[in-house]
């Protein structure tokens, strides 16, 4: 099976910085930002320079606030 490549988009204004996605990601690709959003939360950010993300959706599944959209495609 071809290898999957994924990426996520976090709705940072909706994010409450609970960090559950950071724990759920098997590759620990998500971090909380040092800066806060308008509501004052340190929101989540994907840090994935090497495109390690497989689009496994774990982060999206655990996010209580539905902030994460996951995209996935077969590696070209």
């Amino acid at each position, binding site marked *: 099976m071809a290898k999957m490549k994924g990426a996520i*988009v976090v709705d940072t204004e909706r994010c*409450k910085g*609970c960090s559950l996605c950071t724990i759920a990601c098997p590759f620990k690709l998500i971090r909380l930002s040092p800066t806060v959003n308008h509501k004052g939360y340190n929101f989540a950010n994907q840090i994935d320079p090497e495109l390690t993300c497989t689009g496994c959706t774990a982060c999206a*599944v*655990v996010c*209580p606030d*539905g902030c*994460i959209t*996951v995209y996935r495609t077969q590696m070209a």
Partner: protein
Amino acid sequence: MTREDIIKQENKVAGRPSLMNDMPMHYCPGCSHGVVHKIVAELIDEMNLQDKTIGICPVGCAVFAYRYLDIDWVEAAHGRAPACASALNRLWPEHLVFTYQGDGDLGCIGTAETIHALNRGENITIIFINNAIYGMTGGQMAPTTLMGQKTATCPYGREADLHGYPLHMTDIAATLEGTAYVSRQAVDTVAHIRAAKRAIRKAFENSLAKKGSNLVEIVATCSSGWKLTPAKANEWMAENMLPYYPLGDLKDKA
């Protein structure tokens, strides 16, 4: 391949369910309620039931569930959601009628309504969020609070003499003749979330198939009430709640 190549509409594989609207949820960071809302939204969508569902909100933190899922909702008085559901089940027999209730709502003030609706075999689903505390009112003792657990009304820890024992409503539900499916799940991990979704799906299917009453307990966290971070709350739950409230199906008539 770049991020931009991946982030395209046609590659979207997960996101906020379409039945869940934009309204930011009032829940505290990491609150289990949000995860369960998502599951329910996905299921109603997948099962194509938007115009055939009536949801019943509790009094508890989930009182505002009606703001987030685009279905019709009735906000019940504290503890009375199962009575509401009974009426709606009988008047709208082709509809999916479900309640969404906390431990205080379902297992304390609403004990009678819960037991009687279940024992009448109303074709409904009760989703029971057991976070072992009264979230909404600021962290008081719930019927499901563990022995020794500290809350605003048992600040030195729950003691049998003063506060009695935790109540196992789900176990009681499983003994009732009217229930078709009774299950205990959690939403702390991806695997648990997927299992919880399967359980709620079965409950919904049973309800529609008029097989009787269904109850799915979700062992949940309340980081605010427990005074822990969301991550620590998940850990505390796994360590303390799950041994006492073990996961799995308690009854499956089918």
